[in-house]
């Protein structure tokens, strides 16, 4: 079993996600191989030698991306074309939007594109956090993935994400003020955590495991 962890770290929010990946890597040093890059070519190169993929960065409905900027061209790092091609691959995208587009696309059998992805976990639309204190959400994501890497299946991962992100809501409610968050920011912390919990989905084989 080998897991490629792709972290583009292209802007503050993507770098925050990258820190979550770093924490996960510390718990599973021999299983996870980190790839911090904005290069599609490097991603393609490493995909060939890894069965599974975890992604921590920006997403769109059908692509996992580095967004374009004033002087930077948008780059697609992962999409249907390069995620297919390895037997029984599991993809987990800690990113906005891909759960309802890229996920269903890559797990669907297609005679022209064999070796579909076995299972995909992602989110239905935007996910976010209050930048003063992202830790409850990040810790929930890392804890759920930690259990998945230790032997859980995809159904358990999704249930674990939902429960732990719901618990993150409670942490914002109970400890947000003590962490210096104003009432409006406490509310947004709670609401963001609930939204992560509510909008995570999986497609493909729910009994799949690493």
């Amino acid at each position: 079993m080998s897991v490629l962890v792709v972290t583009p770290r292209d802007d503050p929010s993507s770098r925050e996600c990258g820190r979550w990946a770093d924490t996960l890597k510390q718990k599973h040093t021999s299983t996870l191989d980190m790839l911090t890059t904005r290069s599609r070519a490097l991603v393609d190169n490493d995909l060939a030698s890894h069965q599974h993929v975890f992604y921590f960065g920006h997403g769109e409905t059908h692509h996992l991306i580095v967004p374009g900027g004033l002087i930077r061209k948008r780059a697609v790092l992962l999409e249907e074309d390069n995620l297919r091609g390895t037997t029984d691959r599991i993809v987990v995208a800690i990113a906005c939007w891909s759960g309802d587009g890229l996920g269903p696309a890559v797990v669907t059998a297609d005679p022209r594109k064999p070796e579909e992805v076995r299972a995909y976990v992602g989110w239905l639309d935007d996910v976010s956090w209050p930048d003063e204190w992202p830790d409850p959400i990040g810790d929930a994501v890392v804890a759920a993935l930690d259990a998945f890497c230790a032997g859980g299946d995809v159904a358990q991962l999704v249930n674990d994400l939902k429960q732990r992100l719901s618990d993150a809501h409670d942490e914002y409610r109970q400890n947000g003020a003590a962490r210096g968050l104003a009432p409006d920011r406490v509310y947004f912390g709670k609401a963001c955590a609930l939204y992560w919990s509510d909008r995570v989905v999986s497609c493909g084989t729910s009994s799949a495991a690493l």
Partner: protein
Amino acid sequence: MPDPYERLSEPQREEAIRALRRWALYQHDKTEPVLRFLDGAALTAQDLLDEPPPPPGGKDIFRGVHETSRAWRHVLNLITVSMDHGESLEEIVAQLQPRSESPA
């Protein structure tokens, strides 16, 4: 797939949007005239989505959501899902009071 906020009734959307505009513009321009202007303005749900005001301080409202109109939709979606989980719109609006009006 439809946005969660589309499940809100029109009166609920308008109440949420009034609270959000008030909150966001106060963060952007912490002056009482802004609040008085907003209180006197006739707003509909579409006003916010069609012509979003500037985000607070010219920065992202949240990490991870950059485009301003998307950010507004996202905030409305957050409110809707909070309501799904039992928080009333009245309670949510109370938490979005401009900070100078928040209880100590």
